[in-house]
């Protein structure tokens, strides 16, 4: 009896090809995601990035009127460069001076202009599921 090629193999091969095709299609349309950078690395970035940093100084302004203004520095480096951020939209409950946050946005004329509702806070001290903003 001649062994016929199993259709199961054909299906698997075809689906792997299909998945790869979808993948390539997706990455070519949507790009490969957002780079995640620290304030000290922000200099050369021109596109949209996710900025990870610790809030220093007292925040001013209103996130729902004109924008909340604060500065971020590298989490690991207390003496490092800071970058001014202007943010609008939902402010998570845990946002405060000294807290680690992630905001998405773009550097414009030396100020990091955050995408609306993009702020996510991290709680460094202990187990805590915190609030992702605006999703």
């Amino acid at each position, binding site marked *: 009896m001649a062994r*016929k090629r*199993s*259709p*199961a193999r054909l*299906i*698997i091969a075809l*689906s792997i090809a299909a*998945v790869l095709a*979808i*993948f390539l299609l*997706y990455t070519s349309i*949507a790009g*490969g*995601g*957002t*780079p*995640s*950078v620290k304030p000290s690395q922000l200099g050369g970035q021109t596109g949209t990035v*996710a900025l*990870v940093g610790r809030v220093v100084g007292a925040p001013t302004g*209103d*996130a*729902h*009127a004109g924008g909340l203004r604060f500065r971020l520095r590298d989490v690991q480096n207390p003496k490092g460069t800071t970058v001014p951020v202007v943010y609008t939209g*939902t*402010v998570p*409950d*845990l946002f*405060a001076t000294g807290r*680690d946050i*992630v905001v998405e946005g773009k550097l414009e004329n030396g100020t990091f202009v955050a995408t609306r509702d993009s702020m*996510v*806070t*991290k*709680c*460094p*001290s*202990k*187990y*805590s*599921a*915190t*609030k*992702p*903003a*605006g*999703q």
Partner: protein
Amino acid sequence: MAELGRAALVVTLGLCVYATVAGSYAAARRRRRLAGSARNALIAAFGSTVVAAGVLAAGFLRSDFSLTYVAQHSNRTLGRAYKLSAFWGGQEGSLLLWLLILTGYAALAVWLNRNRARDLVVWVAPVLAGIAVGFAFLLVAVASPFDVQAAPADGAGLNPSLQNPYMMAHPPFLYLGYVGLAVPFAFAMGALLSGRTDERWIVATRRWTLVAWTALGVGQLLGAHWAYVEVGWGGYYAWDPVENAALMPFLAATAFLHSVMIQEKRGMLKVWNVVLVALAFCLSIFGTFLTRSGVVNSIHSFSESNIGPWFLAFIFVAVAFATTLIVWRLPLLRSKTRLESLVSREAVFLYNNLLLVALCLTILWGVAWPILSEAVRGTTVVVGRPYYDFFLRIFGLPLLLLMGIGPMIAWRRASLRGLGRTFLWPFLISVAVGLVLLWRGAGSSVPGLIAYTFSAFVLAAIALEFIRGTRARKALASESWPGALFSLIGRNRRRYGGYIVHVAIVFLAIGIAGSAYDSVVEGKLAPGQSLRVAGYSVLYQRLVERDTPHAAEVRAQLLVSRDGKVLGPLEAGKNSFKIAGPDPQVSSEVGIRTNYLTGEDLFVIPEQINADGSVYFRIFVKPLVNLIWLAGFVFLFGSIIALWPDAREQRRLAVRYEEAGGTVRGT
């Protein structure tokens, strides 16, 4: 007391090492008495782990802050129930819970199977013990929950957002699920080690897999509901790495639950099944690693810890072990039969499996992408919601449709006439539903419209199955309609339990797809002003302040009306918890008004409360979202039916496996 706890863990480690080494030797050399001793050591390891867990629980209940772990996660004012749930509030306690559940499952599994399929089970004990060695070692040497200190006056307390009934139930359920996957994994590895690669290991572990899978599903829904009502950003799933960590093993286990049916009925997909169960188990370890290592930026930021490399080593060993075994035993894993047609139940189950695994792997890719891009390009690149949503649609929608086809299509080869008979009505109904929805304006979201059309198809197909089955039963036994339905389900618990679970998944899909039709409005309101959204009008009346023993509460009192008719009051505000500590203990308390008839929620987030008494609100109207929570109950109900012991099935299987020369029975 701390010494007792630490000693108990050392004893557990010793017993597990012994069970691994002696058990493997006994299995390889066929020493029955030694194998019995290894099995008993594993059962004893559960006993000593219970002692360790008891010591830690007692430490929490007695507020013994000389235990560093207790001091970090509890305080005196915490309620008794939350003191207990603080047990798994941190890393060390979570690991201990892992070990407790693992040794508990292991003891039960080897005990229940002590007289069945001996040649297979002798290998199960050392594999389970080997997994337990990993966790016991971590608890003894790296992350001990029994470190002591000079007792402070009070502990740091439990984060207020975790002081919630959901947070008491959510982690243990997830762990019951994660850890439960170790049992089918151990049986699969046992089957490979012993060379007994027939479907007995699958029959023996069907219920174990179902229990683990159900717990994982319920655990995730509990977490989602907690996020929805408590965290309050208007969603329930954020594609966060830690959430994905629970979803990935669930998807792999779902694929496994389906593909084992093909092996049971048709003797196919043997390699695939052991690969899937190994994947599910390794992903559950990976999930624990992600949660605990801090390697990926997550909103669930657990304290960064030193156990990351250990977990990585653990995953590496597990993957290498499983891969080696599978490659070694490949010759024994040949299929008995082959796929005859691309239009058959086997084939549809295969498509379902490929889609589930594809979804699982794309999620894994998204989770690992920051690490990979860092390694390759030097910059960390994160993928967000659009990536995951895209693949959920690409793979999830066909999966939804297959749910209406797979269980009804014929085995081996489906005929055109058979297809017509089975699917004509569901097809017509779904087309009709699609057209009606299109006419009502559901076309604003194409994926949403597709999801609803497919959902209608699946529900109609399942309903038809129930009607046909009941009618046949009624004709056969001349019972009443409800009696016939009842005995139909009772006699085919796996099948009809499965259908009910499918209904739950359809509800889930409808609820999730409903988010495509969310309405939202936001704005700053002074008392007396109102916002309108999707027919609702929300009037902000006044701001009130209340003082409770635990928190200072601020509440905006609202009046909700719809189409001019007053529906009633609603409150939303913020709590400032009276707990000393480094965290600002403020939490938003959203206001939710549910319409139980339509499953729609009005969801009010008090974004910002200003000093002048004005409040910045964001208000959602979320159609059908409550079907997600309803799905949870239906899911549990269906799973329990599928799990319920069935004497008839046991007898059938017993006969079958005596013929096959074994004496295994489903457990």
